[in-house]
């Protein structure tokens, strides 16, 4: 299975739902329409010519400079039979951070979507139990978003020989 074959297969099926494609370190990357994430991934999982039945990982990314496409959900799929990998990226605006959950397709996405909700505030619609998973429940912000100032490098209030840095 080559990148070209997979790309033409998916493009012929989904057409303009594949917004862009590129290749990094030999891995095919598809930018997909965020509304179409479930149908595209279902096809890639179940279609006999793709059969990427394993969700390696799923993660959120914050691009503060991309207006209207600030948040991104990245999926990595794996065909275990022939060891072929594919990466999908779906962008969503930070003002309405909603995307369909793929936990119905891949059970492992359940945990990972909760984590991305916890850290980026991405709301996965259709997730069975979207709660914070790693941070405390009372937290009222999303710590991995790039909207917090970096620490002042000259800060001295924690300089302590035994207890601080």
């Amino acid at each position: 299975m080559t990148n070209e074959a997979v790309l033409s297969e998916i493009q012929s099926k989904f057409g303009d739902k594949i917004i862009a494609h590129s290749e990094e370190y030999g891995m095919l990357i598809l930018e997909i329409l965020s509304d179409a994430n479930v149908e595209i991934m279902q096809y890639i999982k179940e279609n006999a010519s793709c059969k990427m039945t394993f969700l390696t990982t799923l993660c959120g990314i914050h691009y503060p400079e991309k207006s209207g496409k600030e948040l991104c959900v990245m999926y990595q799929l794996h065909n275990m039979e022939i060891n072929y990998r594919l990466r999908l990226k779906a962008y969503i605006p930070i003002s309405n951070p909603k995307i369909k959950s793929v936990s119905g397709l891949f059970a492992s996405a359940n945990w990972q979507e909760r984590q991305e909700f916890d850290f980026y505030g991405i709301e996965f619609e259709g997730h069975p139990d979207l709660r914070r998973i790693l941070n405390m429940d009372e937290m009222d912000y999303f710590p991995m978003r790039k909207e917090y100032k970096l620490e002042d490098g000259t800060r001295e209030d924690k300089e302590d020989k035994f207890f601080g840095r």
Partner: protein
Amino acid sequence: MNQLDKIKTENIDGYKGEGFMVTKFSEAIGLARANSIWPLPFATSCCGIEFMSTMGPNYDLARFGSERLSFSPRQADLLMVMGTISKKMGPILKKVYEQMAEPRWVIAVGACASSGGIFDTYSVLQGIDRVIPVDVYVPGCPPRPEQIIEGVMQIQELIKNESIRRRDMPEYQKLLEAYEIE
């Protein structure tokens, strides 16, 4: 006086004579408590590894009467917090402390438990004294077993020298009130 008596009466006020000693009840109880501390190890990271060494035969905390670890807070006298405590862990630590019966002492082992250490970040409690009162802080990242033993010995000194019913002291009640512990 035999060797054993010598050790036992070393730091105690009282009248000694041939084969007997008269002292205050509080001193005797303090001595007994200090040498039979049941620690509850609350180990979350590398300081816990140092504690394992402290309990092992090389350093042997049993020399101080603390060989019996209590994994239930209800029977424990000394809460030893060793390692990074995240904010999410904070309420659990507080619950463990609340479940301990008086008299109870707390020792914060290592930089993380004492001040958050290098983890100056959104998810880490900046010292366990934000949620529970602490009696002795042991610095180090991680501290050597000798330092942990020194901390336990400091706790022993506290136990020997403070009122046997410290929970009745107004200062202590005020302290617990400040932490909203009943």
